[in-house]
């Protein structure tokens, strides 16, 4: 994988952390590149099996993609922490340098660095720990159709096709709002309580509405 592809995968991984599905436009905004180059990168990454399901401008990251992305991201995090905490480099430069080095640094150096950082600051253990926490948050974002009846959830993202998305917002399914799943029978439509009204919503629509379970 080239340096630039790794950058793309990392960006998709980070965007995916808080919304599961990622839009092409979001990637191009994050990396500040044209959507055409994003599309080229996506083609490459799909061939490598890191991402899947490219439809209507949405991308989903595969399990292998998740592992690879996590690996790059954890290298990044580790390097950045080293520059910031040990060498007292400014946050901006620490981030920039981490971004350059993460692609070329050898496995050996990385494992030495992990040992060093664990020894340097045993309370805040290895970067993987931080990522684990992020990952758990990632797992708490679920599509609405996988929520059991009777549960209250917060809407995270309405990732439906544009016209349905617009309609869902107009019906009061706003991001961050709380909704209740009234009926969910594994197959067939769901009944969701939105702003005091019971709405019958097809399972397909619900699978594209991402929600976060309340504790």
């Amino acid at each position, binding site marked *: 994988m080239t340096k630039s592809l790794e950058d793309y995968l990392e960006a998709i991984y980070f965007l995916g952390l808080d919304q599961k599905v990622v839009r092409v436009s979001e990637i191009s905004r994050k990396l500040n590149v044209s959507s055409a180059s994003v599309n080229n990168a996506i083609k490459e990454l799909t061939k490598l099996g890191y991402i899947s399901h490219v439809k209507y401008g949405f991308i989903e990251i595969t399990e292998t993609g998740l592992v690879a992305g996590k690996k790059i991201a954890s290298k990044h995090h580790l390097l950045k922490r080293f520059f910031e905490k040990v060498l007292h480099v400014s946050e901006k430069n620490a981030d920039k340098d981490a971004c350059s080095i993460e692609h070329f640094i050898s496995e050996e150096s990385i494992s030495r660095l992990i040992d060093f950082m664990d020894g340097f600051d045993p309370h805040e253990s290895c970067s993987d720990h931080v990522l684990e926490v992020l990952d758990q948050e990632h797992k708490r974002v679920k599509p609405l159709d996988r929520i059991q009846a009777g549960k209250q959830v917060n809407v995270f993202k309405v990732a439906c096709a544009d016209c349905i998305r617009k309609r869902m917002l107009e019906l009061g399914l*706003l991001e961050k709002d709380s909704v209740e799943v009234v009926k969910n029978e594994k197959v*067939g439509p769901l*009944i969701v309580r939105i702003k005091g*009204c019971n709405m019958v919503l097809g399972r397909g629509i619900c699978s594209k509405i991402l929600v976060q379970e309340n504790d």
Partner: protein
Amino acid sequence: MTKKVVALIGQPNSGKTSLFNALTGSNQFVGNWPGVTVEKKEGLLTLDSFEIQVIDLPGSYSLTPYSMEESITRDFIRDNQVDLILNIVDSTHLERHLFLTLQVLALKIPIIVVFNMADELKEEGKQIVLPEMQRLLGVPVTSIIARESKGIECLQNEISSSLRSPKEPRPTFKIPTETADLYQQAKKIEEAVLTMIPGKRISRWKAFWEHLDHVALHPVFGPILFLLVMCFTFWITFSVGGKIADFLEIGLEKLGILVARIPDPMIKSLLKNGIVGGVGNVLLLIPYIAILFLFFSLLEDSGYIGRVAYVMDRFMHHMGLHGKSIIPLILGFGCNVPAIMTARALETEDEKIKTILMVPFMSCSGRLPIFVLFTSAFFGSRGIFIILLLYLLGILVAIITGLILSKVFFKEQSPELMMELSPYRLPYWKNIGRSTWTKVKQYIYKAGTLIFLVTVFLWFLSYFPSSSGFGGEKSIIGIIGKTISPIVAPLGFDWKMTIALLSGFLAKELVLSTMGVLYMGTGSLASLLHAAIPSSTIIVFLVFTLLYVPCLATVSVIRSETNSNKWMFLSIGWSLLVAWIVSFVVKLIVN
């Protein structure tokens, strides 16, 4: 008199049509499910010196349309000079309904915001502080209970004062444009105006409805409940309807005897064979129609029909339709014409056309009298099972039609269901009585006009030339019948039955009245038919009547709703083909 235009705008199931009826005194149909009004309706209201044209627009969640019915609302507001908007709001769902109100306020057209269902809000132990609402929105507001026509006078005063001195809305806030911001604003307003009524307990009904929903929405019991409800509807229709019809029949026989005393042979024949035999037999079956429609009004008014759409969704998906399509299909049991128009509320063109082509096989109330009369004449008390089988056959053919259509014409997956589940409401008897009476009146009207005229015309064709003997093979009608009957001869129909089917195209009830004219003799129509036709043939005949070309009104509404001759002719051709083949198969089985 100054002419003014007032438009009613509100979200689906907010009670626009109830208010429209209360204001204009018209009898538009009201139901408790979203999408009852699919077309704009107009009525007149005279207030002080104003002649007001009141427009009831289809319910719309937002001013940016999603389905065809919703675009009617937007287009009307955009293209017409509207003097005043009545924005009707469901008080129990303020936040969401105020979302539309805010959009409408931004149009800068004079508006009165009407808070409906104040009684239901009270049941929840809450109330709206109207003066505060008025101050915030900067428009006149009023509260009503549209179903019971309460608060209408107050609203009328507001309307006339708004028309006298029209004012642009002056809200105390800047109206946002983004959806999320609109909702935020709506939420703020809701919080500012809703107060709890101290010491009010939440009603017991609410708990009961919730229990009912456990069954009605259950994946297994839900469809079973639906089936039971349908069976009960038809059972009551036949048992109670039959009892009342028996009384009417005695009256009709007396009338026949009375008519027989008339000396002039031609007038006697016209009255006896034409009017009593034809129109009389159609009117005889009014009790069935009335009860059937009464139950359908109940289904719609209570909000149950929306639940059916939910529980049947899975089943309907096999035909590439979603649950909402079942509403037009069920309504088809009443009358195919409004049922087909209801299909407009479906989101995609494919689904709409599929549903429209399926509806004609749902046995409508026009076919019911034919079934009732024939089966009771031929099979007595067992007749009801034959009728049940006929209904099931109709449903089966509709399903097969749906399957074929989705395999041949519409291969795309059906879109996803997206529908509001309206809360149950106790049926309001005035509402139900009114809608049932409207349907019965239409039926009587049809019997008095179209059926009467066609019957007289048929009598004329049967009577002349007068030497031929009434309804004989040498009468005009006999000659016509003989010419075309070879088409259906393999099914065992004689020329009289052929003529009956032919006139049945104008209105299905005419099958009955035509038979009444052509088979007339002494005694009741039932006994005469029994003597003239073998019972195996009558079953085939009923099957054919069930399935062949729907009536003229249905065909023309298919044309106008699909906006294509292709689908209309396809529907006609397909139903004739199916009717012929199925009848032939039934004939083989029966023999």
